[in-house]
Each structure stands twice: as C-alpha cells, then as structure tokens.
C-alpha cells in the first residue's frame, strides 16, 4: 500500500491502518457513526492520517471529501501526529484576560515550533484550546492529561524541563535494567 503522498507506507502507518481496519469492522455502515469512528481512531492513534480517512470513507460508503469535510469542521480532530506530550494552552476568556496568549507564545518560543506543530523529536506538540473548564485556575495549560493552573511565563521552561528529566530518567532506568 501507499500513503497519500504516493510513498510506500512506513511501518508505523501500516500498523495504524491495520488497526483501523479492525476497529471499523465493529461499526455499522451508518453515517451517524462517522464522528464516533473518527473519535475512536484519534483516541487510539492520536491523529487521523489521510489514508485512515480513506478507509473510513470506504467503510461508510461515503465520498472521501465528505469524511474530510466533517473531520476538518470539528476542532478536536488532528491531521498530524501529536507529540508524546501534547501541550494544550487554554485560550478561553478567563485565561485570556489573565495572559493566556503570552503563555502560548512562551511555549512556542521555548519549543521552537508554532502552535499546531510537533517538535522534530516528537516529544512535544502545541495546541490552543478554548476552555478546559478550569477557569478558576486561569491561566491554564495542559501537558498530556495533566492540567496546570495558575500558569506564568516563567513556569513554562520548568514544565518542559520536568518532562525531559522524567524521560531521561526513564531511559536511564530502562538501560540500567537491560544492562543488569
């Protein structure tokens, strides 16, 4: 098989497609299942690859443009692989009046990627979200599933560092484990 760019599939893409095909079988071929299907796939793989959208379209017997049109309408869906630690910065009202945009800029600066992208090492990605529902703690940023309240520009570097240190430690332990 080939990916959307006509290149041979990477092992990762191949594995995703195989899994998606398996998951699709559990859904009736009904239009009303489109959004739940996309959600299930994104929850498992973190994003919707173009080839995946093709598979979904074929399963539901819909033109791919319909599937793509629905997926792009909703803010939740991503079309690029997220980082292992997706960072979501709240841009809701409470967070805005308390400087949320400056927090976002600071993440962009420290990670050297614009919002919507993933770092080359796939460790982090940055996204803006409209209110995570913790407005009393504004400004808020999430790293993975963890919500961090009362954010400040000066806390950004610390958060990134924490993740990197935890990862290094985990790798060291894995290595020690393998050595022993």
């Amino acid at each position, binding site marked *: 098989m080939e990916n959307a760019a006509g290149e041979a599939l990477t092992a990762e893409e191949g594995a995703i497609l195989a899994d998606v095909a398996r998951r699709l079988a559990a859904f009736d071929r009904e239009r009303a299942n489109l959004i739940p299907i996309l959600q299930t796939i994104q929850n498992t793989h973190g994003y919707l690859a173009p080839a995946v959208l093709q598979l979904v379209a074929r399963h539901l017997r819909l033109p791919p443009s319909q599937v793509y049109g629905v997926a792009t309408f909703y803010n939740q869906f991503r079309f690029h692989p997220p980082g292992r630690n997706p960072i979501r910065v709240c*841009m809701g*009202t409470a967070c805005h009046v308390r400087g949320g945009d400056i927090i976002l800029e600071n993440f962009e600066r420290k990670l050297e990627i614009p919002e919507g992208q993933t770092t080359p090492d796939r460790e982090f990605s940055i996204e803006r979200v409209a209110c*995570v529902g913790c407005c009393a703690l504004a400004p808020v940023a999430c790293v993975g599933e963890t919500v961090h309240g009362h954010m400040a520009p000066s806390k950004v570097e610390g958060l990134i560092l924490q993740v990197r240190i935890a990862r290094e430690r985990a790798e060291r332990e894995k290595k020690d484990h393998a050595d022993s």
Partner: protein
Amino acid sequence: MPTAEKATVQDRFEALRTAAEAHQRACNPDHRPTIQIGLATCGIASGALETKAAFEEALAERGIAACIHTVGCVGHCYAEPVVVIDHPESGFPPIFYPQVTPGKAKMLTHLFLEEGDPRFEHLLGATIPNDLIPSVTDFARFNREARVVMAHCGRIDPGEIREYLAAGGYAALAQALQTPPEDIITTVATAGLRGRGGAGFPAARKWRLARSSPDPVRWVVCNADEGDPGAYMDRTLLESTPHQILEGIAICAYAVGSQRALVYVRAEYPLAVTTITSAIAQARAMGLLGADILGSGFNLEVEIFQGSGAFVCGEETALIRSVAGYRGMPHPRPPFPAEKGIDGHPTIINNVKTLAALPPIIGNGADWYRGMGTADSPGTAIFSVVGDVLHPGLVEIPMGTSLRTLIFDICGGIPNKKQFKAVQIGGPSGGCLPAEFLDTPIDFDSLQSAGAMMGSGGMVVMDEDTCMVDVARYFVDFTQKESCGKCTFCRIGTWHLLEILTRITRGEGREGDLETLETLAEDIKAGSLCGLGKTAPNPVLTTLRYFRDEYEAHIREKRCPACVCRPLTAFYIDLEKCARGCNVCEGCCPVEAVFITRQRKRAIDQEKCVKCGECLVACPPEYDAVRKVSPPGLAPVIARPPQDD
C-alpha cells in the same frame, strides 16, 4: 392508574433506598473519622490526587483507621484542594480545610486525627454552626448561596449511585412515575422553570409541543456541550452529581413520552464523560434506567454522544446535524426540534442545569420553586465567577441577587487593591457591564435590557488592568473562528469586525472605524440565521456603549489606557526605586530582556521585551520598581552596556 401498580413503583423504590441506606451505614460502622476530598477536574488540577495519596500514606504509616470519601466539586475552586475532616471522637464538628497540600495532609493526620488538635490556623471553619469554632456559614460565600441544583455537589461520591439514593435521590423520579405525564408538565409550567442554556425559554412550553406530536418516537437530549469559554458549571455537575442529571432526564422523558435520550457532552471533558458513562451503567443495573423502570412500564435508554469541539454545535439544530454525522450547520426554524429533530423525530433539547433542576422541583413542588428568585425568573442560577475575583468558583444564588452581592460579598471582590472595571456575562453572546450596573438584579430580563445576557452562566470579572477593546477583539476572534460559515454576514462580517478591532488594538485605528463597527454589528445581527451570528456583535456593541472613550484613546492617541494592547504598551524599571542587585525580575524574564545597568540596577531591553508582565508581578512590593506605560514612547530609553565578553 390502578393502586396495585402504584404500590409496586413505590415499593421497588423504597427497597432500593433501604438497601442504599444500609450500604451507607455498613461503610463506616464504627464511626471512624472521615476525610472527604473533592476530586473533580479543578481539584485534580490543584493537586487533590497527591493530597489523597498523602492522606493514605500517613494513615497507613500511623495505623489510623479512617475512611477516605471522594466527592465531586463543592464549587469553592479558589480553595482547592478542598478537604472536609469529620472526626467525631475529637468532639469537633466536621471541619472544612482549604488548600490542603500533601504536607498539610500529613500534618493533619498526625495532629488532628491522632492528637485531636484541629489546627485552627489551617481551617476555614466548621461545616455546621457550633459552639467550638467559627463555622463556614458565617461567610457570605456560604450563607448567601441557595443550593438547589448543586445541593449534592461536593457531598456525595459521583461514582456511587447508592450515595445519591441515600441522600434522597431518585425519589422524585419514583414520584413522577406515579403521576400522569400531563401533571408533571403542569408542575414544571407552574414552577416557571426557564431553560438554563442561554435564552431562558420556558421548559414546559417546549415539552408540550413534543408531547402533542403524533409521532410516537421522541428524543430527549441533555445539552452538555458547554462551548462557552470561561464557563464550566455543566462540567462540574456532570462530574459531581451525574445521577441528578439522569433523574432529570428520566423525568423529562417520561413527561414528554420519550424512550430515547442522549447526553451530548464535549470530548474536551474526559472526566465528565467517564463519570456520566458509569452513572448510566449503575442506574441501569438498579432498574432506574432501561426497560420497565421501577416496574412502571416506562422504558428509557440513555446514550452518550461526544461533541467534537465546535461551539456552534451547542445550538439545537446544529447539534442535531452533528449527531447525524454531518458538519454542525444550523438550519432555519420552524420546524422546531421539538417537532422534527433527531432522525426527523420530535426532540427536546435542554441544558444540563435545566434537567438537573427537575428532581428538586418535582420533589418539593412548584410553589417551593417559585418561592425563590423573581416573578419572571423563578428559582436559582449557577454562575462560574472567574477572572479578577478573590474567590473564583461556582456559585448558586437565587435569581434576583445583585451583581454586587455576587461579585463583592460572595466572591470576595477584586484582589490586589485594584478597581472593578467590568463584568462579562454570557460569553461570546453576552456583554460587558460597567460598575453602574452592579446593583442590577441577576435575572433573564434585567441582564438582557442592560445589553448582556444570562447565557449559560459564565461570568468573567475584570479589573482596571483589562482593556475593553482587547476583550471585544477576543470575543470576535472566537466567534469568527467558530462561525459555521453558512451565513455571509456571520462568516465575512465577523471577519471584517475582527480586522478593524485588531487594527485598533495595534494603534492603527482610523477615524470612522467606530461608526463602521456599529453599522456592521447591526447588519450581522440582522443577516445571520442562528444565535451565534445574531449575538456575535454583542461584546462589541456593549463595550462601544460603555467604554467608548477607551476605543477613542486607542484610535486618536494611539494609547491603551489599561496598558494591555502590547504594541501600544511598554514596561520599564524605575531606576530610583530599583534595589540594586535584587535579581528577581532578571530571573523571571522568559526572554532575558532584563539587563544590568552601569549602576548595577536593572533595566529592560525594549527590543527584546515581549511584554508578558512577569517582572511587574515579580518585583518585590517593597521596591515596586517596574512600570507600565502607554504609549510606549513614554518609557525612558536605557541602553544596554556593551557586553564585556
């Protein structure tokens, strides 16, 4: 209905309740101390899981037998992690502790649970009036509230249906099932319940429309899309008292004759999705949902649909499209969803809070409900009061309470000795009200005539450091991005509004811009199909009405009076006040814009400064050396000394 059948419903319900009460008693037979911890999203974000772990560890270490009781959110989000310790043997009543860090948890385990000293300096108060210690009911934050919908929030474990049953839950459903549906609708009509999702439409009127339909297949949808940025009460209810919502859904479904219900909850609320999913399974297992509920012959299946983060999908017709697997584009009404909704069947869509108000209304009667609130807006309202207030969180108050009482008495007013500037009510559809409106009673009609609107209940309080032009630009940016694009005025009009507002906040405003904003705003209102477009200009119109001078300062003087719009503002350090060598500002600056002057004081490199304001917050109050000015030309220019490397 024959009496034998009536008895069955009641008997079955009583059996469930008795079993639940027995289960409650069996949980803690020897009256051990109980530690109650709030584990809703805001509690977890403040570290409640670490606090819980610390308690568990300390209890195990010291060999103390105590129960840990996890609950949802009490609404006191400013005080998270919130812990209530009930230690009957100590002689003290249950005590409310705010901000319980793991360290405090270990200390309290030792000093209170072991030695009986409740540590006065850490407590907020007892949860009930008593002779020993002050109680929280002395504070406005507690005694001005009227908890109807939130009565169980932060008191019961949302993951345990028996706690809700033992607290009186599902009794209203049992009662409703023994009453003719028409009578339920009449009760709701007499109670005067108006929808809490924004527009305040009378719930009973909508229900009658669906009930009178010839189509036997009908749907009830609980709208938990909560797209309003700055509002989170629906999330909190789902996470704290899911069964009350399910009970409300069941009462509504029974009244309108529906057997299918859908909870439409946004996917951004993972904990809420988990909580409501497990609540549905538990209620089903107990026969409180599913087939032949409590032996009444009434069937109801409740499903969950996860919204995918499109604000417009909170709108009823758009919501229905998205459930069918399409882009969430609204369509013109009539037909109303109550006539033709999901799959063409009559569909009642009500907000979470509307549905959660049903059990107390049915249980206590229409007159009881009418006894609260105002004549045209009976009952209570839940607000998430956030932004520049001392005690942000969720507050449930009787309708008719003034904004002043809510913001100043209940939520503690504005912190840091700042002045109140405005309160934004109703999110992107609402408006900003200045201080003159503080005595306005909070109800649907008063807010509407002031130019704001009740909306879903998000209230963002803003102090003098907020720029109202920036706030208007923020909301238009939001609605512009969220417009579904169907109506030209909504799609292009908001884009044009945004372009003008952005120019103004950059200091590139022109004479005539304000007039253009006004006419464009009116056109967008008139030319849009759904509520999103129709209300999108409200934040612009109210700020123009009440804060026009601020717009004019931006346009004519290229100045942002609140020093918020970054191109119009600069930070500098007052060299007279700066303590040489105190390094705080330099350490906190995220872009290394602070440098050392020849006199060893600190100054800001205007080229590098990103105007984040960290140094201003960080500079110790005894020096208070960092200043903000607008226009930026007013900042003294200090050159960076040549680097000696």
